[in-house]
């Protein structure tokens, strides 16, 4: 497969680009929900529109009512989400959780709501301040014909408005994933507003009883599903980061062409030109790595794990460079809330942390390479 978008994919990109710029724009979504101090952090009406556009079904098989497309297509939508800082449950619900529920009865239960843009689902993996899915402490003890879950989760994106959680817990024989509905007794949810105005909940499981049906896949065999889920989420986050970085760069390059100091456009200064060109080159490399990771994921190729980590690390670094250079090259105005560039800096920071930061993934690349 050539490493660029096919005609169909380019068409999807154009559609998503137009839609997100019109409906998901910063003024209409990000600022609106932030400024009203919305407890969900996003608009449900837009989520419904995602459903009408078919975006929510990109990764759902045709037999289950979805479009049966792949990770490249999901990434295309996420890049546009990133460009517009569109607050939406798309990444976690329609990419990560959809992957978790694939081929299970839970899929039958939740896919229709997800397809319609009505259901919000969240992923409860992280327990400490850093992403360490290798060391999950939450326990699930057998109890009657079911399990009893105890422990804490944090950084549960959209957790405050989720109808259902995919929860990773230790069942002594291994890791098991559970589907836990909102309102289950003993589950406490505290919505936390993050630096970028999105909501990342803390969850407290105080001996939460679930029956055996809550298990996703097989007991003790959750590692493999979690790997798939995280790969999907990480590749998706990489695309969103590429979108965040690309738009921050586009705004900066525009600014360089407008702002005058010393009687000339600041874009004429070579020191700034070279930094902008370096930034462009880093973002293009991140974009290629991300597309490669998504192609490999869709082919279910062996090298996918490695390339996903490369993509998440590289796009995180490139996007961080883009927002930092963006704010710097905007000068004082870059520090104001009124001007959008600073919002990109906040979103980048959150996305960089989500599903493992660049150091986590560089370490993973090292391990996969045997050192």
């Amino acid at each position, binding site marked *: 497969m050539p490493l660029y978008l096919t005609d169909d994919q380019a068409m999807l990109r154009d559609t998503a680009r137009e839609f997100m710029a019109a409906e998901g724009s910063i003024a209409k979504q990000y600022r609106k929900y932030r400024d009203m101090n919305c407890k969900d952090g996003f608009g449900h009406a837009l989520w419904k529109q995602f459903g009408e556009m078919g975006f929510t079904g990109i990764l759902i098989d045709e037999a289950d009512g979805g479009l049966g497309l792949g990770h490249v297509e999901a990434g295309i939508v996420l890049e546009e989400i990133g460009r517009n800082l569109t607050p939406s449950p798309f990444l976690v619900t329609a990419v990560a959780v959809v992957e978790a529920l694939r081929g299970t009865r839970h899929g039958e239960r939740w896919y229709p709501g997800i397809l319609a843009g009505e259901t919000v689902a969240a992923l409860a993996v992280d327990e400490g301040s850093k992403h360490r899915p290798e060391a999950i402490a939450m326990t699930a003890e057998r109890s009657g014909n079911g399990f009893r879950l105890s422990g804490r989760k944090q950084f549960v994106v959209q957790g405050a408005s989720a109808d259902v959680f995919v929860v990773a817990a230790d069942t002594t024989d291994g890791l098991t994933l559970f589907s836990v509905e909102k309102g289950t007794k003993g589950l406490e949810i505290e919505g936390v507003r993050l630096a970028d105005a999105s909501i990342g909940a803390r969850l407290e499981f105080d001996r939460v009883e679930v029956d055996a049906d809550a298990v996703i896949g097989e007991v003790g065999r959750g590692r493999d599903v979690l790997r798939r889920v995280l790969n999907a989420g990480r590749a998706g986050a990489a695309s969103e980061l590429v979108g965040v970085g690309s738009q921050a760069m586009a705004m900066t390059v525009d600014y360089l062409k407008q702002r005058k100091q010393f009687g000339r456009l600041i874009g*004429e200064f*070579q020191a700034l*030109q070279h930094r902008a060109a370096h930034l462009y*080159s880093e973002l293009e*490399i991140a974009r290629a*790595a991300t597309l490669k990771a998504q192609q490999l994921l869709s082919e279910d190729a062996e090298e996918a794990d490695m390339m996903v980590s490369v993509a998440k*690390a590289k796009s995180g670094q490139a996007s961080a460079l883009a927002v930092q250079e963006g704010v710097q090259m905007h000068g004082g105005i870059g520090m104001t809330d009124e001007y959008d560039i600073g919002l990109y800096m906040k979103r980048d920071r959150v996305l960089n942390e989500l599903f493992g930061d660049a150091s986590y993934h560089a370490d993973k690349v090292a391990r996969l390479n*045997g*050192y």
Partner: protein
Amino acid sequence: MADLETFRREARAWLEANCPAEMREPVRDESDYCWGGRNPLFKSDAQKAWMERMAARGWTVPDWPREYGGGGLSPAETKVLRQEMAAAGARNPLMSFGISMLGPALLKYGTEAQKKRFLPEIARGEIRWCQGYSEPNAGSDLASVATKCEDRGDHWLVNGQKVWTSYADKADWIFCLVRTDPEAPKHKGISFILFDMRTPGVSTKPILLISGNSPFCETFFDDVKVPKDQVVGEVNKGWDVAKYLLGHEREMISGMGLGGTGESLGAALAERLKDDPILRADVARFDVDAMAFRAMSERFIDELKAGRAHPAQPSIMKYAGTELNKARHELIMAAGGSGALEWESERSKGGKAPREWLRTKANSIEGGTSEIQLGIVAKHILELPGT
């Protein structure tokens, strides 16, 4: 795509049968490359056989037309062949400025007679070419070349000096930028000319580098007579040819960013990284960059073959690839410690590590410096205003 699978199987079988085991060993140093030429230096019979077998199939230049000595393969087939060569660990059969630089320029700008005359020789590795671009006062500002080329009716007369001409002393022919109209604005008075290095009046003098090698020369032209039909493209419009060729040169140099086999640097240095967590972290970050760049290279080649690449894209590749290659060798030196400092010793294979490290420092200078590449990206891709 069934055809492509058939092609893959055939290519694999052919490589299996024809690529000598010795030519599947990783390249150890520069002397492992075969450069061809009038008086070719083969390191072994296997190297000679490998070059000749590949040339006979047109696979030294798989995507050139058959009538010019190429393999006539489609872009997709070429990609498959490269993948199969990589999978077999097969070495590049022929290093050649003719293949990576002059050939593409001739294919685009040459007359039919020039293509018929020069391309098959290049494909078979019979003539070794050198590049006469830089002059003492024309490096980054290449369009200010001053080497004089006068129309003397039945021939051209060339006088002047080139510098940094890599392997000029070993080359058979030179492709050269010369000034044919001194009155015109600098980009408009340049022509692109080819001639035999044995022509009377051509002389070369090697320049020693910090790596201890001397691949470059000063090259002098003193009343060199060149036949009229050896200008490529239109007279005074050589800058177009020069730029097109530079795009290919940059693409070739950016390939160095891939560092040969594509094996992870950390895997190669694993033993040394065990007790050095900070170095391990640096190498891990490097491996991320290197693998991401590998994807970028694949995308670039795919876009190029499909005619979708921006004309300034080779500048990104050249910039990113060469900076990466320098970083790779910094890390190799750091991991090697004092052992990597040995310049002459048995164990260090004659100072392979420090010599290669020094060589890579030229990557971001040759073929246009990193500053020049960034300037091109800023101007032609980001469309930032000029000064």
